[in-house]
């Protein structure tokens, strides 16, 4: 360690100082006069919606971009002038870390050791330290491409830590990582900050931001807030409420509440509805709604997410135009999706082991589980992307193995990557989706026009999907999936890496559709999203280990009555219990 660094650390001076930084890209100001400090020995969260400038700021700090105005100093070095030194002092883990998927874990480590010019004598000891730290020891021979999302992030972290950096920049390390692996990542980062390292963790997940010691909140290139997350949360004191277990349709209650001018934001939380009022507005406006549903309105502690959404001007309204357009779904049978003894083997490996359940019409059914638990495999079999080795799956009473085409006509599918054709324009994407679901002539035109109007795509019809903002990409993907008015909708991690505002808009549509009788199957890593589900199936080691309402699952793990576990607590606890039982057997 150089003396300058030692001085910087001992004085507890900021590790990074951002001074009036402006960065412009053609046609857009990505960062507009940012001033901030990042302290050593502390985990700082970099929060903001998609396109806020998080990645740009990180790349500026890592010396990969030059600021147009202002300067950044990192441990006393200027990121432009002393770029060579910056590279040695920082570990930077980009969103899609540059792991070589065709190399094994060990080969990746060796490669990064060489790139970092680590002396050969130190290789062995360094690798042992990193493998021990990341618990990747048993997997050194596995190809990086075959690791789960969580393990990939850990390996990326190990590579970024190769040169013992003093500053660690992590760009959305939590995307696509299940809660168990995420806990591991948090533990690792905690150890690093305890050792005096400055860690910057960018995220669109607000439960992650809440755990940081301090946060920088970016929106549209401006720094909206810097400080402890609690400070921001405290501003919302007295504005967060819950309508406890309303009778009847809680989604209707939420939709109506969101359409009130006094309410700025709201979500479904298990059987209850959580609301945030606008600044200065009173909760009294929702009381008639609550009374009609024979439910109490209670005051709850604000969350960081409430404050975040409020700072960004509140969430979207409660009415989904597209859902209004859909005719109510009427199925002959109450069961929309079902599977019996669904099993899938890959060679010796059983990915899904005798899974059976039934999903009722109009239900949101969540499929949860850690990476590699078999939820993707199960999901793929349910929507006809994979053939089961044994057992059967039905959609709207149609067997996917026997009447594949007819069954597939009944389902809509939207995946994490949105799967839009980048080479086609927005309009051509819509026309393609209408065509592959057999729509033609006047009916096709009518449906496309409906979608364009409902999702406000008019301005972008000639644009390519890749040029759209994340929110509009999501709208387009949803429009394509709903074009043929499917009674069943399959959503594969639909909001992974999506910011809270975009996510709320998405769920407004889904809630509206469900109220029309559409059945929704969803996989997610995002525990708040599980709260929207009517029932949740938890998969672990190829088996279905729990199936119940979110509230019931949370109650199962509550230690005493006044303890309110989160969905994430329930998830981790249920898996621990299963492991303990398996060990006892």
């Amino acid at each position: 360690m150089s003396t300058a660094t030692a001085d910087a650390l001992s004085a507890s001076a900021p590790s990074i100082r951002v001074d009036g930084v402006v960065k412009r890209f053609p046609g857009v100001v990505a960062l507009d006069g940012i001033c901030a400090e990042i302290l050593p020995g502390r985990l700082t969260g970099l929060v903001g919606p998609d396109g806020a400038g998080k990645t740009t700021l990180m790349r500026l700090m890592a010396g990969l971009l030059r600021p147009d105005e202002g300067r950044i100093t990192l441990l006393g070095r200027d990121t432009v002038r002393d770029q060579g030194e910056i590279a040695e002092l920082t570990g930077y883990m980009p969103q899609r870390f540059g792991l070589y998927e065709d190399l094994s874990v060990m080969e990746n480590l060796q490669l990064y050791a060489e790139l970092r010019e680590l002396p050969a004598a130190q290789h062995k000891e360094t690798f042992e330290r990193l493998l021990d730290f990341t618990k990747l020891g048993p997997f050194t021979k596995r190809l990086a491409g075959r690791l789960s999302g969580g393990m990939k992030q850990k390996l990326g972290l190990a590579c970024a830590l190769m040169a013992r950096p003093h500053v660690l920049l992590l760009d959305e390390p939590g995307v696509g990582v299940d809660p168990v692996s995420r806990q591991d990542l948090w533990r690792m980062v905690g150890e690093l900050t305890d050792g005096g390292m400055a860690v910057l963790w960018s995220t669109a997940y607000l439960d992650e931001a809440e755990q940081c010691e301090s946060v920088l909140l970016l929106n549209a290139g401006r720094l909206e807030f810097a400080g402890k997350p609690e400070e921001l949360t405290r501003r919302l004191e007295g504005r967060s409420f819950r309508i406890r277990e309303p009778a009847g349709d809680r989604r209707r209650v939420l939709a109506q509440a969101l359409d009130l001018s006094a309410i700025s934001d709201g979500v479904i939380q298990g059987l209850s509805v959580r609301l945030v009022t606008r600044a200065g507005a009173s909760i009294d406006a929702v009381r008639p709604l609550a009374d009609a549903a024979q439910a109490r309105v209670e005051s709850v502690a604000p969350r960081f997410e409430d404050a975040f959404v409020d700072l960004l001007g509140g969430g979207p309204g409660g009415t989904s135009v597209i859902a209004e357009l859909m005719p109510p779904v009427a199925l002959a049978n109450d069961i929309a999706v079902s599977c019996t003894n669904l099993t899938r083997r890959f060679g010796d490996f059983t990915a899904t082991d005798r899974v059976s359940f039934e999903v009722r019409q109009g239900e949101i059914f969540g499929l949860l589980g850690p990476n590699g638990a078999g939820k993707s495999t199960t999901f793929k079999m349910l929507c006809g992307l994979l053939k089961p080795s044994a057992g059967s799956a039905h959609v709207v009473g149609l067997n996917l193995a026997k009447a594949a085409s007819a069954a597939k006509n009944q389902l809509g599918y939207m995946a994490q990557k949105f799967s839009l054709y980048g080479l086609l324009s927005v309009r051509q994407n819509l026309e393609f989706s209408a065509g592959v679901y057999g729509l033609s002539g006047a009916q096709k035109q009518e449906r496309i026009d409906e979608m364009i109007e409902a999702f406000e795509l008019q301005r972008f019809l000639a644009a390519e999907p890749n040029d759209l903002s994340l929110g509009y990409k999501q709208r387009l993907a949803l429009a394509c999936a709903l074009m043929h008015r499917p009674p069943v909708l399959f959503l594969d991690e639909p909001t992974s890496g999506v910011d809270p505002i975009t996510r709320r808009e998405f769920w407004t549509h889904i809630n509206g559709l469900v109220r029309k009788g559409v059945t929704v199957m969803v996989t997610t890593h995002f525990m708040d999203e599980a709260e929207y589900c009517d029932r949740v199936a938890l998969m672990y080691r190829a088996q279905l280990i729990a199936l119940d309402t979110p509230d019931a699952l949370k109650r199962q793990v509550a230690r005493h009555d006044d303890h309110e576990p989160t969905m994430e607590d329930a998830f981790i606890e249920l898996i621990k219990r299963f492991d303990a039982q398996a060990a006892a057997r």
Partner: protein
Amino acid sequence: MHATLIRLRAQIVKELLCLLRDPKSRTIMIGPPLIQLFVFSFAMTLEIQNVDLALLNRDAGNASLELVQQLQASRLVKRIRVAQDEAEVARLIDTQEVLAGVILPETFSRDIAAGRSGTAQILLDGRKANAAQITLGYLQSIAGNASMSLRPGSGGELAVVRHAFNPNLIYRWFVVPSLSGILVTLIALMVTALSIARERELGTFDQLLVSPCTPTEIIIAKAVPAFLVGTVLASVMMSAAVFIFGIPFTGSIGLLFACLTLFILSLVGIGLMISSICSTQQQAILGTFAVVVPAILISGFATPVENMPRFLQWLAECIPLKHYLIILQGSFLKALPPAEVFANAWPMAVIAAVTLTLATLFVRSKLQ
């Protein structure tokens, strides 16, 4: 059935747009093959011209003078380097300053004057085996001409060669039609090999598989654009052969186009087969090259298939280009009779049927 047609149309439109909507990819699809046709037509010359020769003439008689004059006058020879001894001839060949050396002994003119046959020694650079062979042929015919003019009427033993179908042996008559086949092979394989792999890489393939489209529909939709691009390119190239290069077309245009259809279908089948087993575009490109280079070399374009080992001859039967080249060259130069055309057309039909079926099965197996 109606729904199938609607789905097919939507998919075909999508494939065509993916291929042709972007002006850049449109240019890449059409431009380079046409440029290559012209460049290769001039580059792939099998003729030998403008050769430098070393000459060691120990004879000062009439006969040697006549021979040297004939050499100087021929199109073959650019420059004659006069050597003083054998060592110099050897050095000139060693340093690749000349391709061949001609040594005329002291007795050359004397022998011919005496009615015996004169002997000249020819040294060739074996490193350039093919060019040396052809040069030797030319030198022999020049020597024959010289002997004719020295002793008119006595050259009865000299055969006169006449080449059927291409009397002047213009190499371009042979190269240009073949090139149209080769370039179409490349483009058709590339377009199809990338199509499924690209969708898989970008995640749109899953979206396609959850739709009601069947694997057969997917394969048909993928085959159409490559088919159209291939047909248009081949037509343009063959027109260029006739109207720009002035190559005679003696066969049946209708039959040739029917065969072109089969040819491109078989290529599309191979391309889709490659694409359906690759998961990234990079794999698909590498896969295409693994197939296309040997396919061109074994097709009989550069070397006759009949001279290859038996095993490779069988392999050549599986290569659409081999059959198509026979039909193509035949249709251009020798008015290939329909029976011959059919004999070479049905293997392509078999290849197309097998590969397209396999591609469909591979796509279906992705659903397993």
